[in-house]
C-alpha cells in the first residue's frame, strides 16, 4: 500500500498532475472587490457632506460620458467619480494582490464568514436611516459636523 510520508500540504491544498492548487488568487480577487465596494460606500458618504467634497469626487468621473450636463437629459453627476474611484481601487489591488498571493494558500473556510459579514456591513452602510448618524458622528472628528 502506498503511503504518503511527505505530507507538507498547508490547509487542504491538493495537487493534480503535480500542480498545487493555491487559494491565494481567489482571496486576492475577493479582497480587492470588497475594498473596491468599500471605496464606493465611503466616497458616497464623503460626497454628501459638503458641496466641495462632492465636486472633488465628481472630478474623478469626468471621463465617463454623461457625467456632466443639465437639462432634461441630465447626467450621472458625482456617481461617476464614486464608480471611478471604486474601479481604481479594485483594478490596482487585484493584480497586485494576485501577484503577491498566487502561490499562497489560505483557509477559505475562515474567509467565507468574513466575506459574508463584510457584504452585510457594506449593504447596511448604504442604508441611510441606519448609517447617517454614524457618518455624521465620524465626520464630526474631521470638522464636518452638521447641526
Amino acid at each position, binding site marked *: 500500500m502506498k503511503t504518503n510520508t511527505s505530507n507538507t500540504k498547508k490547509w487542504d491544498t491538493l495537487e493534480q498532475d503535480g500542480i498545487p*492548487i493555491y*487559494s491565494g488568487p481567489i482571496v486576492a480577487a475577493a479582497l480587492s472587490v470588497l475594498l473596491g465596494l468599500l471605496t*464606493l460606500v465611503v466616497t458616497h458618504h464623503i460626497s454628501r457632506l459638503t458641496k466641495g467634497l462632492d465636486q472633488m469626487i465628481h472630478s474623478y468621473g469626468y471621463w465617463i460620458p454623461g457625467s456632466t450636463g443639465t437639462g432634461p*437629459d441630465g447626467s450621472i453627476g458625482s456617481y461617476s467619480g464614486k464608480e471611478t474611484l471604486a474601479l481604481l481601487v479594485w483594478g490596482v489591488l487585484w493584480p497586485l494582490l494576485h501577484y503577491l498571493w498566487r502561490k499562497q494558500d489560505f483557509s477559505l473556510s475562515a474567509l467565507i464568514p468574513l466575506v*459574508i459579514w463584510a457584504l452585510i456591513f457594506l449593504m447596511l452602510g448604504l442604508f441611510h436611516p441606519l448609517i447617517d448618524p454614524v457618518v455624521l458622528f465620524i465626520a464630526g472628528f474631521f470638522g464636518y459636523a452638521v447641526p
Partner: protein
Amino acid sequence: MTNPMIDSHQLTKFLIRFQAICALVLLIMISGLDLFFPTQYALKAAVHGISAISALVVATYMTHRAYFLLRGGRIHYESLRNWALGATVLNFLGAVSGNWIYMRYRGQDGPRDWILQNVPNFHNVLMEFKEFISLFPFPLMVIATFTLFYYKDRINLRHDMKQFMAILMMAAWFFLMLGFMSGLILAKLRFV
C-alpha cells in the same frame, strides 16, 4: 397505463424548455414593451429593463447550480463557466445601461425631481440604496467567473473553493434581486 406513442422522456424535456421559454419571453415583455411607452427615453428604459431581467434570470438559474457546489458535488464545469461568463456580461450590461437611464432619472423634471417633491424618502433612502447595491453583483460574478476559468476543472478537488464560489453566486443573486426590486418600485412610482 402508458401510451407507447408518447415518449415521456422527450415530452418532459420539451415541456421544461417550453415553460422556461414562455416565462422568459413574458418576463422580458415587462420591459420590452417600454419601447412603446410615450416617452423619448423609451429605448434607454427598455435596454436597462431587459438587461436587468435577463441578468436576474441567468443569476437565478445559476443559484440552482450553486446548491450542488455547496454540497461539494461534481458538476459540468464547462457549462458552468459559460453560464458564469454570460451572467457577468449581463450584469455589466445592466450596470452600464443603469448609468445610461440614471442620467434621465436625475434630469430636469425627471423622476428624481417628482419623487423629491412628492415622496422624498423613495429617493433619499430607496434610490440612494439601489444605485449602489446594483453595482455589487457584477464584481461578485467576476470573481466567480475568474475562479472557474483560472482553476478550470481542478477546482473540483477543493471543496472550500467550490463552497466559496457558490456563496458568491448566491450573494450576487441577492444583491441583484434587491436592486431589481427597488428599480421596479421606482419605475412604477414615476417612469422616465
